[in-house]
């Protein structure tokens, strides 16, 4: 994986605004407050992880189901 050099993953101002709205609304729905410093850390983390999460969501993994009752000490059956 080649990680993005830009911690925002190239997000433009509009995307950054969307992230801020998502974080604010999400925390509000959870009835969870966050101060400005906490929100800044959340946004920085989201700037790093959002691009790789989006790539994961876009990945074609149909037919690759989680193993039922996985025994992690052994290879898959």
């Amino acid at each position, binding site marked *: *994986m080649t990680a993005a050099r830009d911690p925002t993953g190239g997000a433009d101002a509009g995307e950054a605004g969307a992230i801020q709205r998502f974080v604010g609304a999400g925390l509000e729905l959870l*009835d969870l*407050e966050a101060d400005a410093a906490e929100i800044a*850390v959340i946004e920085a*983390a989201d700037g790093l992880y959002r691009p790789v999460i989006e790539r994961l969501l876009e990945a074609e993994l149909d037919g690759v*189901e*989680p193993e039922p009752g996985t025994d*992690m000490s052994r290879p898959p059956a």
Partner: protein
Amino acid sequence: MSALLDGTLREQAAAVADGDADPAELLDAALARIEERNPGVNAIVETFPEHSRRMLTEARDGPLYGVPVAIKDEWPLPWRAERLGAAQYLGPPPNPGESGPYRALRDAGAVIVGIANMHEYGAGSTGHISAFGPARNPWNTDRCPGGSSSGSGAAVAARLVSGAVGADGIGSIRYPAAYCGLTGLKPTFGRSTMQGHHGTSTTTIVSGPMCRDAADCRLLGGVLFGGQLTAREPDGLRIGIVPGELWDDCDPEVSAACRQAAEALREASGGTITEVDFAGREHVLISSVLVGSTEELADTTPERVAGLGDDVSLVARALLRYRLLLPAAAISKSLRVRTLVRRSLAELFERVDVLAWPTVAAPAPPLDNPTVNLPSGAYPADYANPRQAGIANLAGVPAISVPVGLSSEGLPIGLQLLAAWGRDELLLDAAEALERANGRQWVDAAPPLARSE
């Protein structure tokens, strides 16, 4: 006694068993050394001489009889509940008790001399955040020791103890092993004792040994596994190298030292090096983070997160909130990546015996700015590190970090080897072969802080 404290677990155990060392004097010497050296590294956050002496008095005649060891702040002891490097618990406080690692150490005759510091809640690869203050890297005390088993790594590297128990959920044994110049084994999931761990439903975390060399990891690992780990000379080792970012997006000094070590291992075993690949590689970083950080998500209620005060770090308070906002679809999809990676590795380990790449992409970053500079850019170490180490936890396979050099700044470099499920012994065999091939140059290297006597 000071020279014996600088020795390996094996040397300490043999000296006590042969009557050449009084275990009570060894314990006192270890406690004195902790008192003397620990302020420089903050590796040990609590000692309890009376409990340690009682352990020694009641010690059984096991393979570690009378040998002082440390244990990460992730395990309950009969006289102390784990703190997880945090000022507050996320949920009900745990009780003291006999954890699996405690019982294993007790039954082996070992003496627990102290609690090793750890990254707050185990949620970091650097060790620079802890309610007890950051642990420091003995090779350069302005650098991170690695995490989350930060104190375990710093304690062994500083020669406070010769072995410590760590835990590894997304690389937490291997990062401090690499940063501190140690050998650290992340066992196959389920092989080492996990009894009493707070993560009762984990599918990623394992306990494991952190020592100076592979033979000591074999000894302490056997204690944690509940059975001896036999040694064999690796012959014709088939080494798999994965092209791409695991090697190329690393500090050039790290890549060069690891390539040299892989070649030395090939030559020593009369083996081969082959380029191979596995499916799902591009999603390992995020999948290992999502699986590892959300297994206990049901315990991370908004009420509990809201109840965390200012004595919990800003980063933890923020990231716990962020965790609650992660897309469920991504968490679900990371489990599909796990399946994909496990299937691919199972096929791959039919063709190679071990996979090899750098444990961490760059040497230990500064404590005051834990950022690593890689060819593709500058990143928080916590972002970059799971790309290198997360796969072993995602798949359940064993992995080991072996010291293979020092950077031009005098910081350790670690090579990671991974093997198929249950082949932990092969990793130890390979690590020992590598030690012999380089004349034990790196496993016997002492950091400046440990050269003072």
